[in-house]
């Protein structure tokens, strides 16, 4: 009877293993070896991974919405020489592990070009695979330096962490006397901006006070505010969830400092208002939903119509990334729907870095250089 049980167990497990292969095998039974996956494409396939669930889900969802909107607009206008685009984002929960899995699934499904991933760790992982396959990626929002460093096929739409840190340091040194910074030691984005901020403050010969937190374990910011209570400005390189708590803690502690956030800060307006926070709050962003600019207002209008809410910067980044790809492909005159990822990569790379290529999108006018970094204007936007 023991033996019988084991036979049952063996049969079960073999069935399970079998199903695993069946599941994956069926999809590309026709296609055979890698590289030929794109052969059946009838649309240009843009892939991406991002957090659609979990703590960071709002970023992934925004990028997805923005990108979908752009693809719909392009397709409605007839696509590229009559060929439409398809965009798909796989959920990666902002983890490296799931980004790889998502990449593989997309690649097997015929992805030709991509938006990389939404968050830094995932995008690093996505990019590692993309380099192996020489697949072009332009990430809307993964801002850490290492995401595109040393990777020819990597580009981005957002600002890099160092740019923001430097800019903030310059601005703070000019405007304020006594600066402070709070950053999140458990987050690569926060750390990246902080490092650049610190370096620039050093260059300027300015001093500042600092405090840290660990968003995983710590949501009470009274101690950090107490450390910085004499500052007249506190720089907050972080996402808005923690940012909103710090703003509230500052008010509760009677701290009068101005609070300056980074481009992860939009969305904070939902969480704070003048009743709960008496400090002045502003953040750095290339995107202003209230802008009178024609491109921006058109984007904001159609986004509102489609999703019923005001787009945030991530949505705008996603939107622009799709247009960057579209315009670059258009400029290069791509005209083969079954073009292999590697060939497409070389073509797009050449056209996007061309000196005459620029894109005026929802986040301003952008140009790219060979490192993959994006050049555009930043602005400070007031929340409160």
């Amino acid at each position, binding site marked *: 009877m023991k033996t019988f049980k*084991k036979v049952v167990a063996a049969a079960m497990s073999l069935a399970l*293993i079998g199903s695993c292969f069946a599941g994956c*095998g069926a999809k590309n039974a026709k296609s055979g070896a890698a590289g030929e996956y794109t052969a059946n494409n009838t649309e240009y396939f843009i892939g991406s991974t991002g957090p659609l669930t979990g703590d960071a889900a709002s970023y992934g969802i925004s990028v997805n919405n923005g990108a979908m909107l752009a693809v719909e607009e392009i397709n409605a206008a007839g696509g590229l020489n009559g060929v439409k685009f398809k965009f798909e984002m796989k959920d990666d929960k902002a983890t490296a592990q799931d980004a790889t899995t998502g990449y593989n699934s997309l690649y097997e499904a015929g992805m030709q070009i991509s938006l990389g991933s939404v968050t830094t*760790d995932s995008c690093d992982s996505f990019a590692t695979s993309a380099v192996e396959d020489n697949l072009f990626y332009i990430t809307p929002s993964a801002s850490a330096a290492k995401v595109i460093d040393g990777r020819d096929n990597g580009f981005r739409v957002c600002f890099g962490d160092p740019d923001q840190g430097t800019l903030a340091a310059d601005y703070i040194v000019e405007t304020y006397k006594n600066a402070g910074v709070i950053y999140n030691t458990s987050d690569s984005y926060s750390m990246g901006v902080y490092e650049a901020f610190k370096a620039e403050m050093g260059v300027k010969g300015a001093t500042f006070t600092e405090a840290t937190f660990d968003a995983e374990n710590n949501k009470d910011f009274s101690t950090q505010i107490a450390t910085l209570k004499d500052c007249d400005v506190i720089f907050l390189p972080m996402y808005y969830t923690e940012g909103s708590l710090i703003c509230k803690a500052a008010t509760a502690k009677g701290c009068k400092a101005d609070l300056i956030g980074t481009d992860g800060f939009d969305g904070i307006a939902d969480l704070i208002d003048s009743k709960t926070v008496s400090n002045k709050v502003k953040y750095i962003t290339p995107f202003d939903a209230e802008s009178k600019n024609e491109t921006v207002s058109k984007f904001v209008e159609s986004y509102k119509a489609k999703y019923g809410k005001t787009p945030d910067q991530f949505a705008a980044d996603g939107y622009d990334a799709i247009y960057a790809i579209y315009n670059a492909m258009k400029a290069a005159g791509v005209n083969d729907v079954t073009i292999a990822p590697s060939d497409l990569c070389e073509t797009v790379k050449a056209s996007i870095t061309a000196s005459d290529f620029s894109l005026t999108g929802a986040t301003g006018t952008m140009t790219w250089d060979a490192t993959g970094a994006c050049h555009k204007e930043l602005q400070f936007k007031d929340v409160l």
Partner: protein
Amino acid sequence: MNYFKNIKNAFKFKNCINYIIVGAMLIISLVMSSMGELPRSSADLLAQMGYSILLAVSLNLVVGFLGELSLGHAGFMCVGAYIGCYFANSLYEVIDSKLLVLIISMLIGGSVAAVFGLIIGLPALRLKGDYLAIVTLAFGEIVRTIFKNQPAFGAALGLSTKRFGSDLYIVALIVVLISLFLIQNIIRSKHGRAITAIRDNEIAAKAMGINITYYKLFVFVFAAFFAGVAGVIFGSKVTPVTYSFFSFNYSIEILVMVVLGGMGNITGSIISAVFITYLNFQLQDKLPGELAALKYLVYAIILILVVIYNNAPKLAALREKLSISNAISSKKKSKNPAAQHDDKNRWDVVPTKIPMDEIVSTDLKQEKAYTPDKPEKGGTE
């Protein structure tokens, strides 16, 4: 000559079912790969299954066989992944062979994790049950916190590692086979008996002269080693290695594998590790948005129902009625030990006091009859 007889014994079907399962996975995938029909995602999934099996089986050693709950298994994996891959990064500069680097780094990662196992095993000598569980949980968190603040390991950015490539699954599954060989041999030896004796009744085991200290440390170190190896495999597949992956949630996911497969049942652990990894893969896109929480809801329900079903004193009769083995072997009932419940002479449950203090006197006694792997019968038994 006994040796050859016993070797023959070891090849009996029921003694090598676990090798058959893993071996079949390996062979099928190799055949498919040689025909060019193995998609990259499947190869990736297989490697993932490989380290999941390692984790589940090694945690089963601690939970199922030693009877102590460890909630920090992901912590050992974290140590292995960070340390092993850190060394691998430097080794790649010296050694050309990717395989050799992987093997060396697995040994390094495993060994360092084993050292941590020794450190966490020390409290295990004084603590039991819930207290030990909390200490292991604390350990997992401490390890993560330390790694995420070390610039040498990339701090919050994570440690960038070099991927082994799509052949990783072959190495992973072979490592699983080797590990299963080592683990099962220990379980089926006198040492395994001593370990299960500690689980069943620590006081009696002590009185029988079993060196509790030695065996508890042994199990923690042994299990930590394999978790560390699993970490290196993970790090050779995923880059960057970030602290956030090795959270408490992941420890729980491993625990779900063990509980679902049956505590003290290695075959069960293998099957449920494969099943849950596959489920995770399939559910990645099937549950959009907040629906992803459904997965954890299912895990939670599995944990609750399986444990209640297997342990509730009131369900003992039901368990016996529904037991697969009973239903199948009704003919052999006379040989079934469970049938002896009817024995008139059986002393009814002695009303025992509930232990006063869980620290010093809890027996982590299982209500349900265990089905540990039977040792091979030594020839003439």
